[in-house]
């Protein structure tokens, strides 16, 4: 075993103490020296909004990651909602390790979300993707300046809108309880038990298939019903795995950008969509800040 295999920070050049506060753009690919100083902090960006809103006063009452207070960082007409986080824990390496741990990931995600929710309740805000980190506030300011046109356009586009999620589920087990139960196998006929079992299995399979077909049809009907009420639509990947605790299997997972005043109409348009369809459920989530619509068009829209 070698003792000198890549000690942490060995490949980092000797550093001035404290964060690099150059205002000019630095090469974003370099590891910042600040990561070797345990006391160093970096600027975590939650959201961007227009300058001059109530966000400045609101920020002071919010708590961000690691319990740090929120502040606003302004350049020109844009304001970023920011808090300081330890540079080491939020380096690429530190972040990667933490986000692979589900409980850590959840803690970061919920805090990020809580800040964005509070911001969005105050003013139109552009949510940042999880873990958007800058060396310092000066770098945040130059980012705001560089992207001012994109952000201005996006904020204008999102203004007055919220996001609603629509998920369609196939639940064959629920379908199985809906129609009258198949005739019970005659208890007195042992020879018939095998056949009854097979019939039951076949019926189950049919119910599964029917539930999935019906769910597909319902999912297909959703955009028809609500497209006119929404400004945009994004399809997320259907949810799977142990966190997908919905009723049955998720068949479609969409997000819609809806004008605030049409939210009720949107819900109404989907009300009852699957009422008469055994084994199919529709779930609406939100309102959300417009996470799914915050990607500037140049960077590719959604998934």
């Amino acid at each position, binding site marked *: 075993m070698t003792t000198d295999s890549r000690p942490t920070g060995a490949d980092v050049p000797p550093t001035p103490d404290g964060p690099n506060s150059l205002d000019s753009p*630095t090469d*974003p690919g370099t590891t910042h020296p600040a*990561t070797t100083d345990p006391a160093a902090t*970096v600027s975590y960006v939650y959201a961007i909004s227009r300058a001059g809103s109530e966000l400045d006063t609101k920020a002071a*009452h919010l708590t961000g990651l690691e319990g740090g207070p929120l502040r606003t960082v302004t350049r020109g007409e844009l304001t970023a909602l920011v808090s300081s986080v330890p540079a080491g824990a*939020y*380096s*690429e390496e530190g972040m*990667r390790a933490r*986000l692979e741990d*589900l409980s850590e990931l959840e803690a970061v*995600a*919920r805090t990020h*979300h809580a800040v964005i*929710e*509070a911001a*969005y*309740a105050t003013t139109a805000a552009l*949510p*940042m*993707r*999880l*873990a*958007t*980190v*800058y*060396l310092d506030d000066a770098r945040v300011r130059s*980012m705001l300046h560089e*992207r001012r046109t994109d*952000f201005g356009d996006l904020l204008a586009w999102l203004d007055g809108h*919220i996001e609603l*999620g629509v998920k369609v589920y196939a639940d064959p087990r*629920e379908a199985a309880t809906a129609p009258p139960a198949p005739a019970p196998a005659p208890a007195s006929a042992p020879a018939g038990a095998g056949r009854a079992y097979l019939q039951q299995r076949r019926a189950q399979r049919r119910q599964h*298939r029917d*539930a999935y077909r019906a769910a597909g049809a319902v999912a297909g009907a959703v955009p028809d019903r609500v497209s006119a009420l929404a400004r945009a639509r*994004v399809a*997320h*990947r259907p*949810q*799977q*795995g*142990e*966190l*997908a605790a919905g*009723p049955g299997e998720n068949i479609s*997972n969409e*997000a819609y950008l809806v004008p*605030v*005043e049409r939210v009720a109409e949107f819900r*109404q348009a989907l*009300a009852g969509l699957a009422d008469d369809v055994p084994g*199919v*459920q529709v779930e*609406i*989530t*939100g309102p959300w*800040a417009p*996470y799914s619509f915050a*990607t*500037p068009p140049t960077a590719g829209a959604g998934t």
Partner: protein
Amino acid sequence: MTHDPAPTNSGGLPGIPGVPRDHGITDLSEEESLAGRQVALIDLLDRLLNGGAVLTGDLVLSVADVDLVRINLRAVIHSITPDDPAPW
């Protein structure tokens, strides 16, 4: 579907207990948004890992990119459980 048909503008949508259905996010009070609404983690991750404005930050370059998202999802996604057989 077994859930009661949700009347216009009011409660009862499946799986979101306690979330008022009839108001926009703009009138959420801070208290409600911070304490009163526990959204499903998976819905949140859909949005925080796939959505949100993507910037090239200074330090965390690949956290926002697909590779790390895949890592997260691998940690999160498990295969279909034995008592929940494949649908076909």
